[in-house]
Structures are given as C-alpha cells and as structure tokens.
C-alpha cells in the first residue's frame, strides 16, 4: 500500500476511536499541525496474526491528560498518572484494532498487552502520521515486521 494511503488509514482509524470513545475531535483539515514537543507519553503494542508488527502513539503530556479526562469524564487535574497511562494504552489498543480491520478486514489478529515505552522505536517506523486535535496533537506510527 502506498505510504500516503497508509497514512490515511492511520488518520481515519485514530479519528474513529478518538471521536467515538474519547470524545476528542480532530482539528479542521488544513489547520497547521503543531510540533510534538515536551514530555511525551508513548504507549505501544505488538500484534500477531497472518502478519505481525507494532503500533504506537507519541502524545504530549497535556494532550494525553485531556484525552484521559475526556474518556473518564473527569477534569484534567483529576487524572492520576496511573489512569493517564492506562487510558492511553487502551487508546493505542483500539487504534491498532481499527487499523488492522481496515488493512486486513477478514483476518484475526492477536493484540498483545500495550505498554508505555520510551518514545523511540526500534528501527525507524514504517509509517507515521501526526494529527492535529482540537486541543493538542498526537502521532500514530505503524510498523510491519516479517510474516511468521
């Protein structure tokens, strides 16, 4: 799949998940995409199936806090560190599921438990897409590994 199509898949999957369960909207198309800076939260997970790979997110702390608050129905200041990490791990899990269903709609994948990583991927990611949100920014990256 051409890189730009793949980027669109990442964008569509992230938008679907963020809007449905995380009550977070993307910025208008054409709005400038802010840079990803500052302390980041980087959930990521592996998946296995007909092919295997990894998906992860890079999220500035403030954006992550807002997303977690939206999901839990709380104010940003009420979100604990543990809740923040757990909500963002679940976000990465759902985006991964949505991406895989768009790429391989008939195949069953096993999604392993997400974890918070250091923010650098092993090797360069195959594709990534940075998304401007109404209040913030996040990056989704996706990497196929060798077929089993």
């Amino acid at each position, binding site marked *: 799949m051409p890189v730009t199509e793949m980027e669109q898949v990442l964008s569509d999957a992230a938008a679907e998940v963020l809007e449905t369960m995380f009550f977070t909207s993307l910025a208008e198309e054409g709005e400038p995409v802010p840079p990803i800076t500052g302390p980041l939260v980087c959930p990521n997970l592996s998946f296995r199936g007909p092919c295997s790979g990894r998906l992860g997110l890079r999220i500035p702390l403030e954006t992550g806090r807002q997303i977690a608050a939206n999901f*839990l129905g709380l104010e940003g200041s009420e979100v604990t560190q543990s809740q923040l990490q757990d909500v963002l791990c679940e976000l990465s899990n759902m985006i991964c599921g949505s991406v895989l*269903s768009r790429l391989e709609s008939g195949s*069953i994948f096993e999604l392993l438990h997400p974890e918070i990583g250091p923010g650098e991927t092993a090797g360069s990611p195959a594709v990534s897409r940075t998304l401007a949100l109404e209040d913030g920014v996040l990056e989704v990256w996706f990497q196929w590994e060798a077929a089993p």
Partner: protein
Amino acid sequence: MAYNVLIVDDSPAMRSFVRRVLELSGIPVGQFLEAGDGQQALEVLHKQWVDVVLTDLNMPTMDGEQFVRHMEADESLRSIPVLVVSTDRTDQRVQQMLTLGAKGYVTKPFLPETLREELERALGDAHAGH
C-alpha cells in the same frame, strides 16, 4: 431487583468506562465485579452470583475465547449471558463467539448508548434464565 455484573478486561480504564456506562444507564447494579483475565473471572464466578458478564477477547493468561469455552463447559455457569466487547470486528470472530455461546458482541470503539442497549438485551436474557 439489582444485577451483579462482571467485567473482564485487562485494561482498568476500560473497566472504569463500562462501570460508568452502567451507572449512567439507570440499570440497577447490585455488585460491580472486575477481573483482569479469564482465569480471574472464573475464580470470581465460582464465588459470587453474577447475572451478566462482559468480556474482552485479547487478554493475557486466559483470553476471552478460552474463558467463554470454560463457561459453556461448566453447567453452573452456562446460563449466564455473556457480552463480548472487543476491538476484533471480523465476521469470522463475531460468528465464532456467538456460536460459542455469547449473547451479544460489541466492537470497540463503541458509543456508551450502544453498550447500554446491548446490556439491556443481555439482561433480558438474564431474566428469562432465572
């Protein structure tokens, strides 16, 4: 009449979200029980009365498919309605879980209202079973 609900998911965030949907939906909940995987869930089920189970599929130790198989194989657990809540939206998986005995299947991400409706349907089955 109040229902005991068991949510099985390795994400505490997901369990919180489901709990909130339950609280907002007006469904009278007696006990809200939680488990992080199928193994823990079976332990809960053997100790507590449960009216309905919501389960994820991708979980460590014992995944949702194995968990549902165990429930179906156990005469004391077979009649408890199970709702699958999973990122897996393939037709094959949905059919598989319904054939294994799940009463409903909700794909993530979902609207809170959708989960509420599916729970109402599953609880309708809970009424019928008792």
